[in-house]
């Protein structure tokens, strides 16, 4: 992008909700069932059926609103949005247009070294459409209506995003909040978290907006980044050539990494929104909102501050640990497990916690990035990791041994405890035992001992190595250093 332009992005996220039933009927809300097995006359749009609003979906909407600092409207209205498509059984989608459930709110996003608030425009409730199936079918298209009527929240940001990195961070933060509050599973592969972007450019310093282009079909964070990078380049080349950006909808092609035109503004549909007469305006009891507020789990931002405080680490490091719900939970659980060890071993909990955090930030995070949630599984549970770090804290295992044990455990699927046992890896810290090894080594190497005493400092390292060798690598290095120096009398 030419340095004279600034990128302006607003994001629209469709998030499916973790309710048992669909938004307007009792059908199960579940991914992956055989086509058209999770349907009934209501979600099939039969003549004569009526929608009945699922309160559980409203509850999740309220919880998301509370988590994002939105204004929760005590009165909101459902509208019908009309268009013809085979995956839309009624010929209209029930959505909220003029009076959405939520407006305002913000998501703090990392922007270079700083944190910026990306404001939210609105969040409304609506139903999902079904899916048209084309693959492997000749001379026909099939329609699967399992997804028709699944509850969605559409989360629309203000055009506050200025870089592809901010866009990705916004989506990660939003997804984290959706997951930590139990509103959605945020699964992008299964389509429960979908994103469209409105992208325009403007000269730096300008306060008006350029012509925007809507980009669809970006179904991973990586693709969002790629699509935005591509789109910015494309628009800036147009503008630099003195051409105009056309207002249109474009599809991202993940194979080529390009965006391609889908439909122009002139072809845009007239949705003929009007208030849904079958659903009375949604009026919320303020007490209900208070009740949800009281039972809300810790929000990511609160958790970052808490973890930074409780674990004595910087906010940036804390953020790395809580950006994924599972990691954040793992950390908390491991600390609780560590507490038991500290009480039994009579050492201060903080000592172990500091080691735990460092270990998570390095070893566990590396494996997490490589292998995902499985590295937090059974054999590597929070209790196992706490046990491992307790051994380090109690100096029964060196840190480098612990790292090796962890790596082996990840690869083999065995628990760290089992790895230690099999390899007979435990650290010897007993002064008596280490002292015995030292006495033996000093007796076996009299000339080296003499040379050291005469001033050849580097021989200290040689003697350490000999004791370590004798201990089978188990000697606690700090203890060994200390005792050896004493024994050599220097």
């Amino acid at each position, binding site marked *: 992008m030419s340095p004279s332009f600034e990128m302006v992005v607003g994001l629209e996220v469709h998030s499916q909700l973790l309710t048992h039933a669909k938004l307007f009927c009792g059908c199960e809300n579940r991914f992956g069932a055989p086509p058209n097995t999770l349907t009934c*006359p209501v979600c*099939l*749009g*039969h*003549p*004569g*059926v*009526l*929608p*009945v*609003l699922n309160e559980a979906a409203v509850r999740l909407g309220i919880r998301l609103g509370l988590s994002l600092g939105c204004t929760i409207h005590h009165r909101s209205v459902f509208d*019908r949005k*009309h268009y*013809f498509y*085979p995956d839309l*059984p*009624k*010929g*209209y989608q029930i959505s909220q247009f003029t009076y959405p459930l939520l407006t305002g709110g913000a998501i703090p996003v990392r922007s270079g070294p700083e944190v910026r608030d990306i404001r939210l425009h609105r969040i409304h409730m609506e139903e999902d459409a079904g899916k048209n199936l084309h693959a492997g079918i000749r001379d026909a298209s099939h*329609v699967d209506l399992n997804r028709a009527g699944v509850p969605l929240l559409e989360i629309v940001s203000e055009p506050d995003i200025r870089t592809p990195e901010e866009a990705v961070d916004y989506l990660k933060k939003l997804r984290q909040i959706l997951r930590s509050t139990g509103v959605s599973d945020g699964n992008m592969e299964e389509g429960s978290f979908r994103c469209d972007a409105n992208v325009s450019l403007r000269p730096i310093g300008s306060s008006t907006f350029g012509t925007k282009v809507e980009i669809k079909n970006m179904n991973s964070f990586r693709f969002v980044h790629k699509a935005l990078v591509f789109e910015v380049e494309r628009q800036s080349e147009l503008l630099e050539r003195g051409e105009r950006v056309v207002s249109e909808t474009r599809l991202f092609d993940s194979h080529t990494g390009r965006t391609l035109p889908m439909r122009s503004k002139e072809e845009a549909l*007239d949705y*003929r*929104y*009007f208030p849904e*007469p*079958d*659903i*009375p305006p949604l009026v919320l009891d303020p007490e209900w909102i208070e009740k949800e507020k009281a039972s809300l789990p810790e929000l990511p931002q609160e958790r970052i501050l808490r973890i930074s405080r409780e674990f004595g680490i910087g906010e940036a490091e804390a953020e790395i640990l809580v950006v994924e719900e599972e990691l954040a939970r793992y950390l908390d659980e491991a600390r609780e497990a560590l507490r038991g060890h500290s009480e039994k071993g009579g050492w201060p909990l903080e000592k172990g916690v500091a080691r735990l955090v460092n270990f998570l930030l390095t070893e566990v995070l590396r494996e997490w990035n490589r292998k995902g949630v499985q590295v937090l599984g059974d054999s590597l549970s929070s209790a196992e990791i706490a046990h491992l770090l307790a051994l380090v804290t109690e100096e029964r295992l060196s840190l480098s041994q612990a790292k090796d044990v962890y790596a082996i455990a990840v690869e083999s699927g065995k628990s760290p405890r089992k790895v230690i046992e099999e390899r007979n890896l435990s650290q010897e810290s007993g002064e008596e035992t280490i002292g015995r090894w030292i006495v033996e080594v000093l007796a076996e190497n009299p000339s080296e001992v003499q040379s050291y005493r005469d001033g050849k400092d580097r021989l200290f390292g040689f003697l350490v190595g000999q004791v370590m060798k004798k201990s089978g690598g188990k000697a606690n290095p700090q203890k060994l250093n200390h005792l050896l120096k004493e024994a050599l009398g220097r």
Partner: protein
Amino acid sequence: MSASFFSSLEEFRKGRDEGAFSIEESVRHYLDRIESHNPSLGAYLTVNPNAVNRARQLDNRKARNPAQSPFYGYPVALKDNLHAIGLPTTCSSAMLANFRPVENATVVDRLLKAGAIVLGKTNMDEFAMGSSTENSAMGPTKNPWDPARVPGGSSGGSAVAVAAGLAPMSLGSDTGGSIRQPAAFCGVLGLKPTYGRVSRYGLVAFSSSLDQIGPFSFSAADALALTVLVSGPDGKDMTVSSRDPVEMERDFAMGTRGLTVGMPEEFFGEGLDGAIAASLERARAVWESEGIVFKPVRLPSAKYGINVYYLIATSEAASNLSRYDGVRYGLRSLSVPDLKALYENTRREGFGPEVKRRILLGTFALSAGYQDQYYRRAQQVQALIREEFDRAFHEVDLIFAPTTPTPPFRFGEKVADPLSMYLSDIYTISANLAGLPALSAPSYPTPSGLPAGAQLIGPAWSEGKLLRMAQVLERAVGTKRPPDLFSKKGETAA
């Protein structure tokens, strides 16, 4: 054969419980009359092939357990936009000619639970759009008082079934007058309950904010019983009120003396047929003699009712009828080279001209750039009409008006002129727009022997009071049945 096997629900219950007749005999009576009269009347589209079986089962069960509900074994007819499992729901449209519902309408569920027997499904204007039943894709329904005249609509079949003794009671639906206008044309009582009184689940939607299901009967007491039976909260319809339907029985049991009834100047002026006006004058005299006080009221915005109605009802209809796309059920055009043709050809072949006209009107009224001018404006006027009724009901208990401007008109008379057809609902539409209960009760026939209807409109939830008023008139006018002209066996009236 007598037109009616029993003269009231109470007489049915007594005869049934005292063993004067079996449920099967009662059902056979109506099935026989349908067989002999329906070919010339065209009231029914489908007759329930299972009706006699069900009657026998109910008779058998009754031998072991005495019946609980007065409706146990009682036969009823359903307008063909109400779902009953086992029978098609066509809405008198080619679009749904082959559609069989998989669920019962809530009202049908409640009827069946009480032990009622569905006789069959009755003819109507396609998707309930019309005032003469001439817009049916399934053929005409004749007015039993004069076969050259229409029965009114859109619930023409349900009105005729009761008037001609092809069912003792029936259910219809009323969006702008579709129960009251055919009731007036056929000389029976028709009630449109308060919006939100009766669940619409299983009623094929025309205009969701205006549609309401209601009964046809000869007597106010019967209409009350059927309305109470089908009313009340339903987990499947969010627009139903939580009010207890029993309040209607309570209101019905109270006296009418001292009630004040308003007569809107706007409804008794220009455009009202002289014979209807004269009939209503006699009706008023009856009520006055019972101590009911009449006084003029104003409803100045009511004259915009037709305009408002044809914007709101068509907007909702265009939306509600979007689902008929040939994808999942109903008609699918055989000529579908692509998706666009699937939609266009299916809808071109499946919908009749009046339905198409209203879809176009409604689509236009909601389209970008016109919505403020039409749909929103209509909503504003609708709010005015509601306010004027509210104000009127501070001064009077009920409102009295004609049901229709004229007696039943002749076939073909208004088909070519949709506007004049629309005007036949001019007195009934306001009650729908305001969500109020209203009924048409048989008044004195015109000098040429045609029925005339007296309309009563009340504040929300006042059905019991309306029916009590209707009962006063009913006792004075007497039950008038049409001449039994239509039997193919050449029978005459008993």
